[in-house]
């Protein structure tokens, strides 16, 4: 159990859980999917493979941040700016 990467994986999970609170389809939808995605890989023990999966998680974080930004930006643009011709 005392995998040196354990802390990193938990940190990733917490960060994703936090980001999921703003997910357009709701935090519950997000949490279920997040949990199943992590549980799917619970038996992975190869450090290289775990690192790869964590990197994939970091990528998802970036994508989510970009998604939230764009969503807000588009909402503001639609509300306050004339559509471009």
């Amino acid at each position, binding site marked *: 159990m005392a995998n040196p990467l354990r802390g990193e994986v938990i940190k990733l999970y*917490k*960060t994703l859980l*936090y*980001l999921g609170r703003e997910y*357009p389809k709701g935090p519950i939808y997000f949490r279920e999917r997040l949990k199943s995605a992590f549980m799917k890989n619970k038996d992975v023990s190869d450090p290289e493979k775990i690192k790869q999966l964590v990197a994939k998680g970091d990528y998802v974080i970036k994508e989510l*941040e970009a998604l*939230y*930004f764009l*969503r*807000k*930006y588009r*909402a*503001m*643009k639609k*509300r*306050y*700016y004339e559509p471009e011709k």
Partner: protein
Amino acid sequence: MSGRVLVGVKRVIDYAVKIRVKPDHTGVVTDGVKHSMNPFCEIAVEEAVKLKEKKLIQEVVAVSCGPQQSQETIRTALAMGADRGIHVEVSGKDYDSLGPLQVSKILAALAKKEEAQLVILGKQAIDDDCNQTGQMTAALLDWPQGTFASEVSLEAGKVKVVREIDGGLETIKINTPAVLTADLRLNTPRYATLPNIMKAKKKKIANMKPADLGVDLTSRLEVLRVDEPPQRQAGMKVETVEDLVGKLKEAGKV
């Protein structure tokens, strides 16, 4: 230029929440509704933090006026990179009548007290859509103003601001100290990540009352009634061109 930047942040109902008007038409429902930082204020914070990262300024101070919960908004600004916060506590009746004039009085007093070189605000808040606070603050301080900024650059005691105006851009150069208001395209605000929010808990938030700044909050405005926008009328389907022309004639459009 070195010095301090004051950034105003406002706590508003989250942009994604559907706004509901109170049944007695005195305002909108705010209890139990998700709040977050005004999107334009996020852009203002980001700009100040960017200036600090370029070492053009030394300190970013985030200010918010409002009830206890406004501290969360300040916390978000601190997580985005502001150095410290000032919470001007306004609650109850004063908060209900808190408008751009009262806020700009507070900001002007704080800008003087903190000897700020720049005041950066969002151009408007998404709740009252007043678009006045920046302009009024500049007027009260008698400082130059660069509103609707879509590009800001500092150069030796001056600020070059590219402003978004109707049908184009305007570039102005103003002296500091100055007041700037951020438009949507100024930058892309960073996300306040979980570790940064945790770190922000260690940063200081000073608490003060408007009276400490010698600001009088009496409002001369009275809200008479708040209404929802009119509902869109249902459309109808017509079978043929004749039907369409007939209906249009009936409605007096042709």
